[in-house]
């Protein structure tokens, strides 16, 4: 029974990490930008869901497509106005730039919504599914379904649509994609928007599961970083796997050694993976190229 709970929680958390990490990895893969503000996009997504639910009284899961669209537009604009100006500078400079953006967004969140923690509670928040001695909250099941749906949609989009293939082509070989007629500047902005949209959806899902505040994004940026590295920096599918690896490692660490060592265990696993398999679990060599 406990092991079943372990699997459900691991899949749910892993799915959210996967979505967060995939968006982060996409931006890195296409633009060679480490987006430190990724966690704050998640924060904005969480508040969008919170406010749509509170003001319109709709189901939180219905708000996800709307916040995805809103964050896509926001990410697109941020790339066009700010990020695109530093793509030719060193990677450290884009690191600092997005760090400044992160500070700005966190402060904007503090001013707009205050520092207190909030939670999204749909009417069925306390209902549980009882199945052969197992109790699973319905909310967690819906989150799990939503996570699977989002990942499936993302994979379909990346492999079946012309736009998705163009994004992959730009990530693999920018010049060649350009020669083949891809408008890489447009792809940059779309990728950044897509990454923000994924972050927004992840934020909406997290808002239903956990209480959140304006600073919620800071540790999540760290998780996105970890997940992307586990999967091989720049590889989106790798990041999807990395999300599940990290989630199960964290939850396993809590069960094996108690809550206080959980984070320590996750970091040690990360270190060991890095030292033994520097390209990540699935990363290919060219994904790991660093243009300093």
């Amino acid at each position, binding site marked *: 029974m406990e092991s079943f709970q372990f699997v459900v929680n691991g899949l749910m958390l892993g799915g959210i990490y996967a979505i967060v990490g995939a968006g982060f990895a996409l931006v890195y893969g296409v633009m060679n930008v*480490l987006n430190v503000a990724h966690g704050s996009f998640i924060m904005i997504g969480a508040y969008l869901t919170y406010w749509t639910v509170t003001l319109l009284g709709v189901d939180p899961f219905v708000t996800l497509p709307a916040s995805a669209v809103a964050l896509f537009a926001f990410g697109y604009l941020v790339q066009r106005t*700010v990020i695109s*100006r*530093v793509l030719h*500078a*060193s990677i*450290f*400079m884009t*690191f*600092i*730039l997005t*760090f*400044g*953006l*992160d*500070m*700005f*967004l*966190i*402060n*904007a969140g*503090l*001013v707009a919504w205050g520092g207190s923690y909030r939670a999204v509670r749909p009417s069925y928040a306390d209902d549980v599914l009882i199945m052969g001695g197992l109790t699973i909250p319905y909310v967690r099941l819906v989150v799990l379904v939503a996570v699977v749906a989002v990942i499936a949609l993302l994979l379909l989009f990346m492999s079946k649509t012309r736009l998705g293939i163009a994004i992959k082509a730009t990530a693999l070989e920018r010049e060649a994609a350009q020669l083949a007629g891809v408008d890489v500047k447009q792809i940059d902005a779309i990728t950044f928007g897509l990454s923000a949209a994924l972050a927004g959806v992840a934020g909406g899902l997290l808002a239903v599961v956990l209480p959140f505040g304006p600073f919620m994004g800071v540790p999540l940026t*760290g998780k996105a*970083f*970890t997940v992307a*590295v586990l999967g091989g*920096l720049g590889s989106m599918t790798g990041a999807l796997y990395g999300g599940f690896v990290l989630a199960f490692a964290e939850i396993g660490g809590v069960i094996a050694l108690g809550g*206080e*060592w959980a*984070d*320590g265990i996750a*970091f*040690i696993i*990360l*270190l060991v993976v*890095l*030292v033994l398999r*520097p*390209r990540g679990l699935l990363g290919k060599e060219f994904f*790991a*190229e*660093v243009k*300093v």
Partner: protein
Amino acid sequence: MLEARLSSFLREGQRLQVSAAAVGAVALAVVLLLLPNWLSGYWLRITTSVLMFATLAQAWNIITGFTGYPAFGNTAFFGVGAYALAILVTKAGLGIPAAIVLAGLAAAAFCAVIGLPILRLQGHYFAIATLALSLFVREAAANLGWLTNGAIGIVLPTLASGSPEEITRPYYYLMLLVLVACCACTWWVSVSRFGYGLRSIKADEDAAACFGINTTLSKLVAWVLSAFFTGLAGAVWALWITFIDPQSAFNLAIAVKFSVMALLGGLGTVAGPVLGALLVEVLTQAIWGAFYAVHLAVLGLAIMLIVLLMPGGLMQLLRDRLATAKRLLATPSAKESWR
């Protein structure tokens, strides 16, 4: 004839430049030594903080600016230095000077042990590994209660009493000493054969190895030097702050701050990280004072603007300006030699 006159003129100019630099250095040293007499307690604390961050940025510069290894997790050595000092002073009863030096050496030794496996990684993989290391050490400090008091933290004795100025003064001079030592070491790196080796590793590690540079040893020494000065700064910080716990000693915000400073100042230069620390710390204080409720947003915007306006860093900007000025000054004489 003209050429000989020109070259002697240039030599004269060079000599003037060198003596001007020497005069400037002496003047700076006098000002820095006398500064605590003129500053209020508030500004003395900010200046001490500038010195600390300048040290951290400069130490980071050795491994990241010269060697090209982005060690964002240098906070691990800051925290190890702070904890080593706290444990040596409160549990082993050591004197302050010995404890500071030993704390720096502890951070260096820790770096030497974990450096070998981690330095096999490159680029972002190295960066994330150092981050993971620093987070792991924080968890370890929180959980090894018998040594570190865990999350409760360690309280340290104060060095001085009296007015705010008198309380801060010893830490100012200690921090200044650490910074001067760190800058001297960085200057040595910038002119020595060892430093050229590091730069060649940054440019192309395989090629450097082909030319007979022991890249593994060079990288390790560079990082150990960086860890030593970071640990010293952590030790003095622990004395200054008089209370440390895992959250404050292994605070990643410190890493973000010193890397921003070094990057804005200019990596791979000796003056850049110090200028960057001064700029960012003064900017932070000014913005904090003027826009309390939205100071984070304003600082964030300021950082974004600085990056957009000078993506090469302060030193690059100064060098470009200087080159333009020299070209403008040189133009008439160049015309003359054409005739």
